[in-house]
């Protein structure tokens, strides 16, 4: 214990200065344990790794732009810069949502598909994004979620909504097929079938839980 004769208060712990007026304190025996544990301020524990990665990728992209410029600008360096931007966007989602893997997967698949369509558009529309990327992405996320829920032994309320969302995404290729945008129909048909089968399986095995989850998530 200490004593501050300016404030006239007893101070717990061994404070050299008064917490109220910051003047010197006098000793006064008794318990010397500080009233609160000292918690060090940690600034971005993993900061260095990401900073180095950021410098390397951004530095590389700038170097490519420079080389491209020196050789009479053919535009290939813009793809490098775009690739770096996509990498950081996807990395950001995985880190920001690291505590909820299924939510991260759901957001990733949306972003990956949007970026894929954008790349396809920018490189002279050959429809590879909607022909192959979308069906492959939706089906692989469905498979990944299925495995994750089994391995991590997740309770149904932790994964149902994300699984349902991904099945809903899986029906998107049907709309694209109907609009006549696809050049190779087989992957899209496969994706739609897999989504519908997965949905039926979910209803058969977890029908009650699905109804309850939707009631909770959609309550007004």
């Amino acid at each position, binding site marked *: *214990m200490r004593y*501050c004769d300016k*404030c*006239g*208060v*007893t*101070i*717990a*712990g061994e*404070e050299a200065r*008064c*917490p*109220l*007026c*910051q003047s010197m304190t006098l000793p006064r025996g008794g318990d010397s*344990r500080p*009233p*609160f*544990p*000292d*918690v*060090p*301020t940690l600034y971005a524990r993993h900061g260095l790794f990401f900073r180095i990665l950021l410098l390397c990728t951004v530095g590389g992209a700038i170097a490519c732009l420079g080389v491209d410029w020196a050789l009479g600008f053919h535009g290939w360096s813009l793809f490098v810069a775009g690739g770096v931007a996509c990498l950081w966007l996807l990395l950001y989602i995985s880190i920001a949502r690291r*505590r*909820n893997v299924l*939510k991260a997967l759901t957001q990733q698949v949306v972003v990956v598909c949007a970026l894929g369509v954008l790349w396809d558009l920018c490189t002279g529309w050959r429809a590879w994004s909607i022909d192959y990327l979308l069906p492959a992405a939706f089906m692989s996320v469905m498979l990944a979620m299925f495995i994750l829920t089994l391995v991590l032994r997740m*309770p149904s*309320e*932790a994964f149902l909504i994300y699984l349902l969302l991904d099945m809903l995404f899986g029906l998107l290729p049907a709309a694209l097929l109907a609009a006549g945008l696809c050049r190779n129909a087989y992957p899209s048909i496969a994706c739609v079938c897999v989504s519908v089968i997965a949905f039926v399986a979910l209803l058969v095995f977890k029908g*009650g839980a699905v109804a*309850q989850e939707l009631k*909770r*998530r*959609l*309550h*007004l």
Partner: protein
Amino acid sequence: MAKNWSRLDNAAKIFPPTSGKADTRVFRFSCTLTEPVDPEPLARALSDAMVDFPSFRYVLKRGLFWYYLEEGDFPATVCEEDAPPCAALYHGFAAPLFAVTYYGARVNLEVYHALTDATGALQFLRTLIYRYLLLRHPELARDGVPALDYDASRGQRMDDSFDRYYSGKRRRMAPGPVAYQLRGLRPPQWRQQVIVGTASASGLLQRARAMGATITELLAAILLLCIDAERPLRARRRPVVVTIPVNLRKYFDSASARNFFSVVNIGYDFRAHPATLEAVVASVRESLRRALTPEALENRLNALGALERNPFMRAVPLFLKDPVMRLSCDIAERDFTASLSNVGRITMPEALMPFLERFDVYCATRKMQLCVCTLGDTLSMGFTTSLISTDVQRRFFRALTAMDLDVTIYANHPESR
């Protein structure tokens, strides 16, 4: 198995969108014992207390339109205090909304405000301490300690009393004037500056009585005066306003262990009235008398209840609702400078009193909050701010020592040494 779930109560709805690094909306109740805490019986006591209070099992989740509470599945764990006081508990995923830690002889219960208010948390902590002491000292159980005086069934504990007492009578709430806001440098990482002061409850009560006031009125008056004395001259055009949470269980029949509180704002215009303790105490007493009527409290309850029942508000998806609620909360919270929350006298069975030293309570805030509670003759006043400056606290505690009260200060170091 079907999971239990529950809508957030009216007061809790504002907390998830507005809690973040700056204001974690977490408050801490702690109980200091007379001997070091033994973690093993504490964990067992916690496990039992969680059965007594089903709402403490709930985790927070996002729906398409609203947040909601869902029964969670997590073990009762206690650990040694290793984080700054009132650090964030809700990180946007299903995790417990409370934490029990210990440090030396102190048991801390930190609670996210969406789960319950101070009254609910106190009932939980009292049960925890009661069960812990009986496990730690089996001889007490043999002598037969009377049970706690908390009489509520599980249904009553889970009750959403805001919903129960919403009558649908539409009333408008007139917004108050914009109050003076404390400003200054902040500790790193938005940590809270915690300064707890203890004094004799009977001594303070005697001084309050001498002025014809209650302890809450006296402390509110001192706080108003201290804030006024510290602010720059040019800030005087705004009133200093202290907001006081009111436990609605005293006005409406409820034993809920969830949120059931309202607030009243007590302001003082230092330009128009004298800055003497007597004048401010008289003004605070008069404002409280006018604000604390069942009609006024019912009006506020109905006005806030009508907001969440607004069909337009209900149908807006949560990702749009969040920023709207954040903005409206920022605007609404401009009407007070600081908060003063008096939890009042805490009762524990007489046989346990030799093992108890005191209870403390304090709450994370972006502004300044003073939380008061009393055990026996020990009145604990917990100041929290997210400012480095301690000038208001210095004036406040010097005002108490000037009244010949012995004050002991327990402070943390928001900036690590």
